[in-house]
């Protein structure tokens, strides 16, 4: 794991608004992406993030660890 499971969850959460907004922004630039394409591209991106996260990393574990909360 390159990042902790919790970190991955948060990264995925941030990817969702980025994908939603990217479609709107692109439309202003004249590039029209259909909702279906957005979903497909989104799934690809999210899968890529997951694959990146679970791939054997450089060995530097994320410093986050359980603490009293």
């Amino acid at each position: 794991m390159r990042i902790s499971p919790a970190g991955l969850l948060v990264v995925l959460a941030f990817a969702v608004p980025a994908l939603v907004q990217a479609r709107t922004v692109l439309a202003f630039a004249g590039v029209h992406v259909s909702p279906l394409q957005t979903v497909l591209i989104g799934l690809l991106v999210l899968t890529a993030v997951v694959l990146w996260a679970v791939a054997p990393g450089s060995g530097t574990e994320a410093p986050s660890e359980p603490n009293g909360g």
Partner: protein
Amino acid sequence: MSSIEREIGHDEYDPVGTLALIGLYFLLLVVLWTFTYFVEFLGGDLTVVGTLL
């Protein structure tokens, strides 16, 4: 807290990351406001004008 690796006191701490993040936020606000006010609003139809102007 167990996970603290080092103590950083007031005088040795410069919130560089905060300044960077908030600088980006500032730019985003300026761009979004400019777009919304001058393009979406003033560029729209049926703008309400005063009778005197």
